[in-house]
Structures are given as structure tokens and as C-alpha cells.
């Protein structure tokens, strides 16, 4: 061998050995990862939820709101473990008259970029959400807000359309509630994520240190935060986005992340329950999985060539008669989700089960005869062609869930179902553009009250935008909102659910609990799995 060849071979061998050594140094991803990741008390949270936008005016979804909860301040918020909205960056907040809600801010508040946070920013933030009224934004939650005014640098007064709004404090702690910097955000349009991160308009428990959309977000505790949540229990947090829930599961199992949040599949959760390296934490329920009917474009909808409202109603009722929730819950979700026959989950005061008695065999099981009859009575004589859409947003099980719905409907011989799936960020825009005649959605509540399952869905200008409008329903929903007597309000909530069940604007299928899976060395997870339904990174540590 020549000298140069020897050198070349030596170099190749050295490179090979080095590569192997480097790989070996890393060792099993199981053990080593956790120790290094956890150095300094930072925690890593993984999720398959996606961020639509960091701008509070442009999103109304769990993935975006989760990040907003860490970085933006709220006037009111929930202390961990509670479901009562109490002042966050506010010093006080209360009704000063039935239609006036006055909030006084704590003094000397500021954003991470050094800008002052005062009443002017608060007024700007709420007006902005309402004025932009983005189709994917939370403006519908502010339907009872007539106006907002700053009476001094630290005080704002909300004037409400209907007095004694029982859930207004909850609304302030929910999706339209993040307070943003008026010197950063434009008043009339949604701001791009990268521009938001660069301008640092954060005044919540954390600031964003680095941001790769739907990949990796690094949070740093905000030393200037003076709110209800206090100092974060960790030195920082990282949010890691996954595309595949299987990878999320394996990474939490092997200690590469500390906590896995939404959304693991039911089989993954069941599997992880028997793994001694992790702990499965469960919180109160509240999640609904349901179908939405677009009243314009569904079969016989008002904008279809053969529009006929009574036939359209019969189609909705036939579907309600045919779906077998028990089979979906057991086969697809291994009973980690349970059948729901109500618009309001049973944990909430005022919940009823009108769908059980109105549809199917009366006990929750399907009824083919009733489905046939309702269609025949309405004059629907041919097989109904149904275009049904679902999304990856609610976990990979959605594919199996809707395959089963398709099977159940087609087995009846009454429907042919064209089933398609769309990625969430596109889905959320297209559904509001009336692109899906019948489609899947899920609901994670904004605040802990039965109203959060009614007002956002069934009053004009609602979040669904499915063109459903029933003045009688609207009246009841609005009335319960301002009824202070608990028994009377409960009665009204029941009436509202009964009326909606007859119209079938949506069809609830299943209800689920909050689930997080964490390494056994992680503390505080249960503090965020509370009835406020907010994911707070600041309560977790190790």
C-alpha cells in the first residue's frame, strides 16, 4: 500500500470509528435523553396540535390558544385547579351595573419589548378581535360586548348588550381575551407569526425565545409577569410539534420529551397506562366530537338546486337515527371516549340528553326503521348522496371514526357517502367557506359553563358559520345567559338543548376526558388538567 493510500484508508477508518463512537455516546434514546433535556429544570411538552396563528384575532382553536396562554396576559384567568375566572393582570373586575363590567389593571404593567401595557392596549385588543371578525377568529364570543372604553390609564369599562351576563368573566379568560400590544399589532388585520415573535409583544408568564412554526417553540419565563399564575415552576419550556401521534407516544415513552399532551390515540393511551416509565394523567371531561351540517350546502340545503328545508331536516334526522355511538366508542376508541346524547356534557349543570329519546330506538341504539320512515315521510325517495369531510386535527382515530360512520350510513341502504379528509389549517378555512356540506369538528371548552356549548354554536354569527338560525333557540340561549337564578337557568338550558336537538344543527357523537402522559419525574401535570381546560406549562416541573 502506498503512503497516500494508507493515509486515505486510515482517514476512512477514523471517520467510521468516530461516527460509531458518536452514535454510541448518544446511547439509547431511552435513558439519556431525559437527563440532558431536563438540565436546568426546563420541561419539554409534545403535541400533535397545530398552531393556526399566534394572533388572537385570527384563531379559535386549541393548538393556537395553548401557545397564547403561555405568552399573553389576560384580564381574568383561572388559578390552577379552579374553574372560576379571577383577576389575572387585573387588580379588580366586577359588574358595576347590570350592563357594565369594570376592570382595573395592576399598575406599571409592561410588555417584554418594554412597551407599556395600559387600558388603551386592553381597549385595542378587544375592539380588534371584534373589528377584524376573522372567520377563524373568536369574535363570536364577544357578541354580548357592545363597547369597551378606557376611563383612565388603568381602568376599562365593558358595556354589555344584555345585562348580568353570567359567563362574561369566563369570556375574558378565553380566546378573545389575550391582551396585545397596540404598538405591534395592526388594528385591521391578522399579524404574521414571525412578525409577532420578532416584536416580543408578550406579557404573560413566558416570552418566546425561538419559534419554528408547528415544529419547535422555546419559552422563557417572563420576569415582568405580575399576574395570577405567578412565577413558572420551571426554568423554561419547549413545545415540540409532532405530525404522527405514534412518534409522540414513543418519544414520551423513551424520555425524549417530558409530557405528551393532545392528541394521543386511544390505543396509545391504553398501552402507556401499563408502562412504568410514564404516568397517564386524566382530567375532567368536556371534549365533544360531533358532526356539523351546513344548512346551505348539505343535501337539500338552501343553496342546492333541489333545496327543500323539510327534506334537509329529514336527512339530518335519518343520520341521527342511524349512527351507533357505542360501536364507534368501543371499536375505535376502546371506550376512552363515551357516547354522548347531549349538546352539553353531563358534568355541567343544566345538561340533558334529548338526543337519546328523540332518535334511534330511544335507548341510544340506532333504528333503521325510523330512519327509513323519516325520509319517506319527507318525500326523499332516492338514496342520498352525502359528502362528508373529516380532519387530522382530532387525532388519527378520526379516520377510523368516520370510516365507521360511513359504513353505518351506507349499510342502511339510504345513503352513499363520499368521505374525504383535509389537513387542519386548510380545513379550518374551507369549512367556513361552505366547502363541506357535512363535516367533523371537536370542541374543547373555552370556559367551564354549559353556555360554552350553546352560545358559540347556535346563535346567529356563531363560530360554526353553518347558516343555522332559529329565533326561538336564540332567545332561549340569550335568556339563560343573563338569568341569575340557578334553577331557572338550568331549566332554560334544558329547553335550549331540546330545541336544538329537534333542528339538529350539529350531531354530537362522543365525549372525552383530558389526557396527558408524563415521565414519572414530572410534577404538576394534574394542576393543568382542571375544569378550566387550559394547558399551562408553568405548573409543570421536574
Amino acid at each position: 500500500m502506498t503512503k497516500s493510500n494508507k493515509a486515505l484508508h486510515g482517514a476512512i477508518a477514523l471517520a467510521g470509528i468516530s461516527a460509531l463512537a458518536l452514535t454510541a455516546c448518544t446511547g439509547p434514546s431511552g435513558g439519556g435523553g431525559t437527563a440532558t433535556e431536563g438540565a436546568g429544570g426546563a420541561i419539554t411538552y409534545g403535541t400533535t396540535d397545530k398552531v393556526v396563528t399566534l394572533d388572537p384575532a385570527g384563531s379559535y382553536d386549541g393548538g393556537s390558544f395553548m401557545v397564547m396562554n403561555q405568552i399573553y396576559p389576560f384580564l381574568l384567568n383561572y388559578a390552577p385547579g379552579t374553574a372560576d375566572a379571577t383577576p389575572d393582570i387585573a387588580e379588580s373586575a366586577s359588574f358595576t351595573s347590570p350592563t357594565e363590567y369594570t376592570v382595573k389593571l395592576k399598575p406599571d404593567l409592561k410588555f417584554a419589548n418594554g412597551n407599556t401595557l395600559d387600558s388603551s392596549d386592553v381597549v385595542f385588543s378587544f375592539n380588534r378581535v371584534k373589528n377584524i371578525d376573522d372567520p377563524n377568529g373568536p369574535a363570536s364570543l364577544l357578541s354580548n360586548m357592545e363597547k369597551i372604553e378606557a376611563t383612565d390609564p388603568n381602568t376599562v369599562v365593558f358595556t354589555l348588550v344584555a345585562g348580568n351576563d353570567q359567563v362574561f368573566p369566563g369570556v375574558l379568560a378565553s380566546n378573545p381575551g389575550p391582551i396585545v400590544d397596540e404598538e405591534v399589532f395592526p388594528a385591521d388585520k391578522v399579524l404574521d407569526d414571525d412578525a409577532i415573535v420578532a416584536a416580543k409583544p408578550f406579557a404573560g408568564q413566558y416570552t418566546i425565545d425561538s419559534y419554528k412554526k408547528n415544529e419547535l417553540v422555546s419559552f422563557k419565563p417572563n420576569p415582568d409577569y405580575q399576574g395570577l399564575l405567578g412565577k413558572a415552576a420551571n426554568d423554561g419550556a419547549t413545545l415540540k410539534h409532532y405530525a404522527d401521534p405514534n412518534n409522540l407516544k414513543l418519544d414520551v415513552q423513551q424520555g425524549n420529551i417530558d409530557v405528551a399532551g393532545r392528541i394521543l390515540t386511544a390505543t396509545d393511551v391504553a398501552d402507556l397506562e401499563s408502562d412504568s416509565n410514564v404516568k397517564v394523567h386524566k382530567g375532567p371531561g368536556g371534549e365533544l366530537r360531533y358532526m356539523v351540517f351546513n344548512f346551505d350546502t348539505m343535501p337539500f340545503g338552501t343553496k342546492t338546486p333541489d333545496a327543500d328545508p323539510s327534506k334537509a331536516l329529514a336527512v339530518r334526522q335519518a343520520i341521527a337515527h342511524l349512527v351507533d355511538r357505542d360501536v364507534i366508542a368501543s371499536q375505535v376508541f376502546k371506550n376512552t371516549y363515551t357516547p354522548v346524547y347531549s349538546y352539553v356534557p353531563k358534568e355541567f349543570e343544566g345538561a340533558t340528553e334529548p338526543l337519546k329519546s328523540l332518535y334511534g330506538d330511544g335507548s341510544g341504539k340506532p333504528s333503521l326503521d325510523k330512519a327509513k320512515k323519516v325520509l319517506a315521510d319527507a318525500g326523499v325517495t332516492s338514496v342520498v348522496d352525502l359528502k362528508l369531510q373529516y380532519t387530522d386535527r382530532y387525532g388519527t382515530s378520526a379516520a377510523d371514526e368516520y370510516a365507521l360512520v360511513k359504513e353505518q350510513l351506507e349499510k342502511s341502504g339510504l345513503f352513499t357517502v363520499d368521505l374525504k379528509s383535509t389537513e387542519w389549517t386548510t380545513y379550518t378555512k374551507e369549512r367556513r367557506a361552505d366547502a363541506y356540506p357535512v363535516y367533523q369538528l371537536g370542541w374543547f371548552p373555552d370556559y367551564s359553563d354549559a353556555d360554552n356549548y350553546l352560545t358559540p354554536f347556535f346563535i346567529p354569527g356563531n363560530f360554526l358559520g353553518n347558516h343555522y338560525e332559529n329565533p326561538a333557540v336564540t332567545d332561549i340561549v340569550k335568556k339563560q345567559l343573563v338569568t341569575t337564578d340557578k334553577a331557572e337557568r338550568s331549566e332554560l338550558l334544558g329547553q335550549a338543548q331540546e330545541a336544538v336537538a329537534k333542528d339538529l344543527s350539529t350531531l354530537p357523537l362522543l365525549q372525552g376526558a383530558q389526557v396527558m402522559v408524563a415521565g414519572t419525574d414530572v410534577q404538576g401535570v394534574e394542576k393543568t388538567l382542571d375544569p378550566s381546560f387550559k394547558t399551562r406549562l408553568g405548573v409543570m416541573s421536574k
Partner: protein
Amino acid sequence: MTTLIDAPPSDADGILPATRKSAGGGLGQYILVRFLLIFPTIFILVTMVFFLMRITGDPITAAMGGRLPADQLQERIQAAGYDRPILVQYFEYLGQLATGNFGRTLTDNRAVVEMLTTYGSATLELSINALLVALVVGIPLGMVAAHRRDKAPDAVLRVFAILCYATPVFFAGMLLKLTFSVWLGWLPVAGRAKTSSELALTSLQAPTGIYWLDALRSGNMAALADVVAHSVLPAVALGLLTAGIFLRLVRTNVIGTLGRDYVEAGRSRGVSEYRLVTKHAYKPALIPIITVMGLQIAVMLGGAVLTEKTFEWKGLGFQLANYLTARDFVAVQGIVVLLAIIVAMTNFIVDIIAALIDPRVRY
């Protein structure tokens, strides 16, 4: 020109005849011609991508047909300009490309160029790693197979080669992941690095986006080890696809070369079989590898889509799959065009390398 085809490069032992000098145009002219050929190649590829993506009609009808009311559908088609003659749209698209404007993605309103540069580096890293695996596995094993021709190791290696290029890359990926990540726990499950390494590397001044390079530049050996560990399975899954082809190619070429007169002459002069294979037969056998390598880049980029999806390697392939699901036509077109340009450029580079190594290709 039989003698030229038979002629291997010269060597120190003096058993090989010297290569003739080029009798035709010089290297400069060759490079110029090859360079100029890139433009029609890219033009044809871009044109094909454009028209193939419109073969089923405009993207809005393809996505929304039957779901949106007819008037809304038409409104959206008009707003996007898809109601204009296809040739008008095509020339407008070419005009935009000429100015480097790939448009903005429909789903997240990002500049396509920015998206391509962000995720292109990840795909480049994976492709380099995979190519290394293909070379490191394919070439030595091809030589072993040739050296032990028609014996047991040869048979085993030939079956191995067939398995390599016949196994779908996503299946190989899943098998590797199950074995080395899930069961044995030796290697990471997915991603390009642990979150701590990723944060360290992305926070560098002017990062290249190629993690091992950034880790080396910053002297962060822990991150480098982590990045290498994360790279192993995706690189092997993708690299084996090409390794099988390289193995077969090297084997065939080495066997062919071993039968040539100059090797026989060496053999008769007492040069050992091992030396004949490792010193004299492998060099000419490698020349076709260079050419095939260019073609394999296209195969590899295709495989990268599935590999990246399997291992959540957030590169162009991963994004392409996401944008396809989201029916983001602009983003998909941008990625496909970039991949086409990469293939054309790679072939150009490979042609140049082949010409430098073997002057015969210039004739």
C-alpha cells in the same frame, strides 16, 4: 474504439496502459455545453410539472368540486385566475419563476422561496447522509461479491442487493424504527435532533440548516453526536435503496474488469487476487457509479418524501406530503420545481466529475 473502452486508468505497478489524451474538444467546451443543456432540461421539467398538475383541471375544482355551490366555486376560480387560458397562466408562471418568484403558500401564507430554503437544507442533509450510506455499503460489498464470485458470500450479497432496492423505503424505515428504536432502544425514534440540540443549533449566528455542519462549526460535540444518532436510521432507510444498485453495479463491473487482458497479465505476473480487485479492478468499475449516482439523486429525492414522513424529518419531502394533504397547489408546485432543478444541477455536476475522472466521456 475497443482499446479505449478496455483501457483502465494507469497505476503505479505499471501493469495498466496509460489513458489516451482527448482527441476532441477540450474540457472547457464540454462543461459549457453541459451547462447550457441545464436550461432546456429545467424548462422541460418545469413545463411538465405545470401541465401535469393541471391535467385534471384547475386546482380549486379538483379540491372543491361537488362540495361548494357552483356560484361560489366559480367565484373562487375567477379570484385565483384559473379561469384564464392555460397558456396565459403558463407564461405568467414562467415569468414569475424567471424573477425568482415562486409565489406564497396557500395554507400558511409563507413565501415559497423562504419555505424552500428553510426545509431544503434538511433534505440536503438527509440526501448526503443517504448517499454516504449507499457508497459505504454498496461499493465494498460489490467488491466482495465480485471477489467471491459464484460463492456463498456472492449469493447472499446478491439477494441482499435485490432486497435493498425492492423493499419500499417506508417499509424499510418502519422496520428499522421498530427494531432499533422501539425494541432495542438504541437509536432515536424520529426528528433531526433532541429539542435541546435543535434549540442550540437553530440559535447559532447564520446557521446553514445542515445540523451536523452547524454542530461542527460551533464545536458542539454533544449536539453533533445527537444529530448523528438521529441521522442513522433515516439515512440507512434511504441509503439502502441506492446501495443495492451500487452493489450490483460494482460487482458486474469488477467482474468484467477482472477478465480483461491487463488484469490477466497482472495475474500471470504473480499479483495477488486481492490486490487485483482492490487496486486495479475497482477504479474502472467506479466510473459508471458516478454516472448512475446522478440518476439516483432523483430516486433518492422521491424516497426522501416517504423517509422524511416516517421519521418526522422536517425537510422538503415532509412538507411536500403535508402540502399535498392540504391541497396547497402553489407550495407543491414550488417544491416539485425545486426538486427538478436539483436533479438537473446534480446531473450536470456528475457529468463534470465523470469527465474529470474519465476523459473518454468527453468524446
